[in-house]
């Protein structure tokens, strides 16, 4: 009967089908490169929603961030390593929301490519970007949850949900191998080149730094895997992303921890630590407008929160006592670490007076001064609040919460590269990058100015094969500047005394130094837990992570009672969060 009726009309399908109008049906979704761009933007829109969980899981579980008296029981669980699966801060669902979109995009990009709706280069760039995001999200899930469902099919229909083959569970080592295998096959690992439709300026933001750096992701994956040469190779590609042709300011400064990039800790008066420069310098890296040169030279991957658009910057509520609810604070352990450093004003060659020596060797790291600040007597994590609170602790508008999420910057890159180089046996190189730079370290008479009339032909370089080759020559006779000549090292940029290392067991000592420097430089940027866990697994030494967490909790005014239990748990290699399956 029904068919009978249908035959009398020209097309039954047309009679019945409707296309959604305020959403987009699959038929109208993946048609051309602009649709592909919309898909990529959609994925990044979803990534933005991970910011809070990313920072909390990586930092509050680590040794640098602590709860406050405002924290709820769930944050406390996270800090004390007693979280249960129902803890809302560790819900894996938003991560999988990114993944389901990535899977959908990847599968459909392949179809578009097969149907010639995307050109080779368009497909390669976008497919690789989204593929890398998926790997990055999975790496995060693996680090935190250990064994997780590894979904790679686009789960479209309810019937796909019921098929357990779509949800295989894999452990962290297997996951890392799978992610590496997938990611290294991505057809395009560079940044989007100029002229790509996705590179634009929107609402005053250049989109260039919105996208994940695939080489750094690969470097990290190799670092987890223990393939140090491959890791160093990937990092090195980013370190030297510019040069030696093109704009020399870019190839001297970009990602090179350069003495010229206005990112140093500095003072306006000699031997006077009250003259610490607030703007420019290292602190200003976290406040800088997204468009300026120095931002571009340091930041590799950063997503902004804007006052006019959702999602609302989650860090204000989390960290600020003004306009927020101040739920996390710097751990005493972190503050102790900064205060155990020696800040110097000048690398003076002349002989200072005794008083000057005292004032020039102040027991702190000014990066600590800028990483947290006392507001009403309470330590407040500041890196995320500079766009909101400003120097006077008074928000311009208490309800407008601009800010940034820092996912990778030059310092991260240098430290990770150093970690790889060290494990690859290049201790001195690692030491150089972390301390006072290549030129200084590979110079028999360090400290001479570039303009000093010296022949540097055979110094200031590593003389190592790729990817460990660095040339930092900067001399006058003959006049010569290589791309690394401005490199001053992580600690050099912070005007800290270089670390003095014992001569035994260089690998471990240099690695310890790097992990310690990770804390000082990158605190609260979401690197900590993965740094600690990676090394603990690599060394097969759970005490490496357990003792650090123990120290944090022990020194915490709020969680001291939980220190031993947490240590024992971590010593038993119980590192992972419970996974909420439904």
């Amino acid at each position, binding site marked *: 009967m*029904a068919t*009978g*009726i*249908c035959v009398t009309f020209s097309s*039954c*399908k047309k*009679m*019945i*089908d*409707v296309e*959604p*109008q*305020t*959403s*987009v049906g*699959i038929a109208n979704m993946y048609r051309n490169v602009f*649709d592909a761009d*919309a*898909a*990529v*933007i*959609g*994925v990044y829109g*979803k990534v933005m929603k991970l910011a809070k969980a990313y920072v909390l899981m990586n930092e509050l579980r680590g040794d640098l961030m602590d709860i406050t*008296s405002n*924290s*709820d*029981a769930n944050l406390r*669980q996270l800090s004390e390593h007693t979280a249960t699966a129902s803890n809302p801060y560790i*819900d894996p*669902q938003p991560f*999988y929301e*990114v*993944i*389901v*979109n990535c899977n*959908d995009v990847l599968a459909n990009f392949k179809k578009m490519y097969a149907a010639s709706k995307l050109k080779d280069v368009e497909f390669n760039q976008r497919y690789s970007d989204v593929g890398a995001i998926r790997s990055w999200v999975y790496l995060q899930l693996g680090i935190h949850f250990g064994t*997780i*469902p590894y*979904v790679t099919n686009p*789960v*479209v*229909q*309810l*019937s*796909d949900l019921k098929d357990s083959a779509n949800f295989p569970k894999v452990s962290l080592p297997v996951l890392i191998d799978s992610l590496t295998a997938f990611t290294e096959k991505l057809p395009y690992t560079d940044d989007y080149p100029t002229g790509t439709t996705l590179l634009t300026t*929107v*609402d005053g*933001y250049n989109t260039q730094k*919105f996208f994940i750096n695939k080489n750094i992701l690969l470097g990290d994956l190799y670092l987890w895997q223990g393939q140090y040469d491959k890791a160093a190779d990937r990092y090195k590609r980013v370190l030297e992303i510019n040069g030696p042709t093109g704009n020399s300011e870019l190839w001297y400064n970009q990602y090179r921890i350069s003495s010229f990039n206005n990112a140093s800790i500095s003072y306006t008066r000699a031997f006077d630590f009250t003259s610490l420069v607030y703007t420019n310098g290292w602190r200003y890296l976290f406040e800088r407008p997204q468009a300026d040169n120095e931002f571009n030279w340091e930041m590799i991957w950063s997503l902004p929160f804007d*006052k*006019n*658009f959702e999602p*609302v910057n989650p860090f204000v509520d989390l960290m600020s006592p003004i306009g927020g609810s101040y739920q996390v604070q710097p751990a005493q352990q972190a503050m102790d670490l900064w205060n155990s450093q020696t800040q110097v004003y000048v690398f003076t060659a002349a002989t200072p007076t005794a008083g000057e020596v005292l004032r020039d060797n102040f027991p702190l790291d000014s990066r600590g001064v800028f990483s947290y600040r006392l507001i009403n007597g309470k330590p407040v994590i500041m890196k995320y609040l500079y766009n909101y609170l400003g120097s006077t602790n008074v928000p311009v508008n208490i*309800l*407008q*919460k601009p800010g940034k999420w820092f996912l990778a910057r030059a310092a991260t890159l240098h430290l990770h590269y150093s970690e790889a180089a060290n494990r690859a046996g290049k201790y001195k190189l690692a030491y150089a990058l972390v301390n006072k730079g290549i030129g200084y370290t590979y110079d028999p008479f360090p400290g001479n100015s570039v303009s000093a009339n010296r022949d540097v032909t055979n110094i200031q370089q590593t003389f190592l094969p790729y990817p460990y080759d660095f040339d930092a020559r900067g001399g006058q006779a003959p006049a010569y500047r290589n791309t690394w000549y401005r490199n001053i090292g992580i600690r050099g940029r912070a005007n800290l005394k270089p670390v003095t290392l014992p001569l035994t067991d260089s690998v471990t000592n240099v690695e310890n130094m790097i992990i310690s420097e990770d804390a000082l430089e990158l605190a609260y940027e979401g690197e900590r837990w993965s740094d600690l866990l990676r090394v603990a697994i690599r060394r097969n030494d759970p005490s490496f992570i357990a003792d650090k967490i123990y120290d944090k909790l022990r020194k915490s005014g709020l969680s001291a009672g939980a220190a031993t239990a947490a240590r024992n748990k971590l010593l038993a290699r119980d590192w992972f969060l419970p*996974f*909420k399956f*439904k």
Partner: protein
Amino acid sequence: MNAATKKPIRGVSIKYKEIAASITDSAGNFSINLPVKSGLLLLESDGYQAKEVPVSGSAKLKIVMYDENFSSPSEEAVLPTATFTKTVTPYAATGININDGWNRYGETPDAYLQGKVAGLNVIRRSGTSNIGAALFLRGINSLYATNQPLIIVDGVIFDNSSVGGSIISNNYNNPLSTIDVRDIDNISVLKDASFLYGTKGGNGAIIISTIRAKELGTKIDFAVNGGFNAMPKNLPVMNAADYRTYLSEILKTKGMSDADIQNQPYMNDDPANPAYYAYHNQTNWQDKVMRNAYTKNVYLKVTGGDNIARYAISLGFLNNGGLTKNTDISKYNMRFNGDLNLSRRMTATTNLAFTFADQELRDQGSASKTNPLFLALVKAPFLRTNEVSASGVESPILADRDTLNISNPVAITQLGQAFNKAYRFFGSIGFNYTLTKKITLSSTIGITYSKVRENFFVPRKGVTTDTLFNAIAYSRLGTQVTSLFSLYNDTRLTYSAIFKKQHSLTARLGARYMYAKTEQDYGLGYNSAIDELVSVGNGVNGLRKIGGEIGQSKWMSTYLDVDYGYADKYFLSANLTADASSRFGKNASSGVKIGSNVFSLLPSVAASWLISSEKMLAGSKIDLLKLRASYGIAGNDDIGNYTAKQTYVSQNLLGMQGLVRAGIANDQLQWEAVKKLNVGLDLAVLKERLQLSFDFYSNKTDKLIVYEQAPTASGFDYVVSNSGGLKTTGLEASLSYRILNKKNYSWDAGINIGKYKSSVTRLPDDKIITNFAGATYITKVGSGPNEFYGHQANGVYVTDAVAASEGLSIRNADGSLTAFKGGDIRFADLNSDKIIDDNDKMILGNPNPDFYGSFYNRVSYKRFSLNALFTFSVGNDVYNYTRAQLEGMSNAYNQTDAVRNRWRTNGQVTDVPKATWGDPMGNSRFSNRWIEDGSYLRLRTVTLTYDIRIRSKFFKNASVYASGNNLVTFTKYRGYDPEFSPTESIFGQGVDNTLEPQVRSVQIGFRVGL
């Protein structure tokens, strides 16, 4: 003969199908030659109720006939395909005698139906005019899809959903309000006969037929009415003195010192203090926002025509003042219906209707900053509406929001605005073409277009601010336009024949097609420069928000329907529908795939046995005895326009718009399938004076739409699937009795009553928890679909020591425990872990009534008649959200007088806990403290009519009447009124979130016929 006067009636037409006919003579006698041994005779006469009489063999019959007001078992019910008398239909279908519609002009058809039909539970949404009622025909069949019956007006499906909801809080754009009750000829309620609407028939159907000219002569009816709506009794909130005591106490628990409290302006009793007059008043805020209001109405109806064309025209105007000050509605409606005889074989009908309503409203419900009624309850009584000088001279300027941060309700009623302008056009044309004697082709095409434009303005003066994610909202502005367009066609071939004079057979093969498009566009703005700038465009640019939704659906239903009758004793109906819809998934599991579309195949069968036509009952005292049974499957296609599809929605990255997956698609998504079983019995005795109908039914919904929890690794929280099951069984009975039947007076009384019980039979997850206005509902297998779920309160701890000895605590957000103390509520610790938390919740009640219904009395004496309709609902539980706010004692809201008895010191025995700012112990949490019995018995309408004796030839008839609505209500419920329905969803029924209550109204009117 006439049943009352016992006098013979002349000129009654007597018919047996189209086969034999006769007419009574002046002595009331007739004879008719029946070609068959038994059958039903149809008797009709002007001024009398039509009647069907069974005949078997050759017999002498003595038949009495009743006046038109008598409710007869031969009353007509309009079924989807044809009009039947109740005598012969195998279905549970009720036709409604709508004679009293003239006195009920102010009501919408849905509200009018209250108490009219056994099994139809009509719950008026609120006392706001035009807002209508939620209709539950035989209880609950669905959790998330609609539970409202399908509405058909003049053969066309009437889209009765409110597009996109209202931007005015708790307002409802009621499409049925566009039909004037007086424009209705007949309403038939199909409890099971809705099978013919296939996947739209799951909740039964209500078929409305509008006015048609029944005779050729021109007939004019004109009515004019006026009335008065009375304010309800005020709720007993505290006076200024009691409130001040309460306030100082609660502020102290906030941490304010005695000195700080004494420094507050309202505590300073020195008349020399400049703020003295602003804070020392005794304001009855309820009187400031509510009022008595007037209503007026004019209506004209003209019918007439000739052999070729007949017409029925109506015009109406109504103005009704709302309970809240400055609210009212003006409504204009027009209808033009025509019947045309185009040729010997072809007839046509046309319907045109247009309605325009212009209504001014205010926010209602859970809008604590802008609902004037709520604000009037909680506003400090010592404040005043206007600013006042230090010497006590009142300024014409309204007072701003107060120091306690509560809006001035009068600022909302005076300076605020909320308008709703609704238009609806309906037009249809139907053709009927007789192909052969037995076969007819008919087709109806209907078009509906409706548009609702709303705007609101919340002034900055006098109103508490809102916080947006990036700004403070002082003034708030909004506008919305929603529209609906629908196109409907129903075309069918009808074969109708009588074989061997005893077998009647009618078969229909047809198809229905419906296309509907809805659109909603809204804009919200904030912070216009001054309160005189009230339109959205004046808001701050960066804060403006726009949004909307466009929904489209297409539905095609093919149907085959057969009615067979033998000897007017045995009746059988069967039908089969096959529907395709844009909403169904491509792989819907229980359908049949034809081409690329899935068709539902839903069969039904119904049979009845008219026992009173059997020989054995011939001449007995039983006038009518009929057994009915029906069984079949109908569907519910309210499953979302695009739920089955894989769709993408926009996702911003700063100001860039990307696209992301909307969710998990479900290509197996299908209609909910409602398996309906009905068994019924109809009985009439004492010459039909006593009539009884009884029905038992069981509705089982399979493939119930549920939001099923999705695994975390899917990336989504839930997926919509057909994975639930629900069962509703019920009984209903109606009884009517003409107690007295004399020449000058008669007395009719009747009762109808319905009862149902629903239980969930299948869910994919353990339970579903739903929240509405602070109420929590639980849905789980084995219990009802929407039961209240919360804590049990067992009084108040008399002393700290008693509390300590029980040792109960709550867990704070930071994980620490706080112990209950004296003056806290003693909650039941169901799992005995000494901690009161979610694990101690239990079922507290159920918003569904144990039984519901109505009874009526109609007494006429000479030219007077008195009609009274009582409605009742028994055993329905209500969450009194309003009282939870008024006795929660957690903030500066004024409270009811009950809290004067609050706990203050150790040893005090009371059932009211202590007042604490912010209620840290959760004493006012959702518990049985706020659950009340919502049972009520109400004198719903009462009407006294006097027919004026007319001697003029010009006037045909005239009457005056007085009527009252909601005059008396018996209830223990402590809110304004026990009847309300704040949402369409079953999760929200029984929650009194401070809506405008029903008003008591009286009207007088005059009606004249020319």
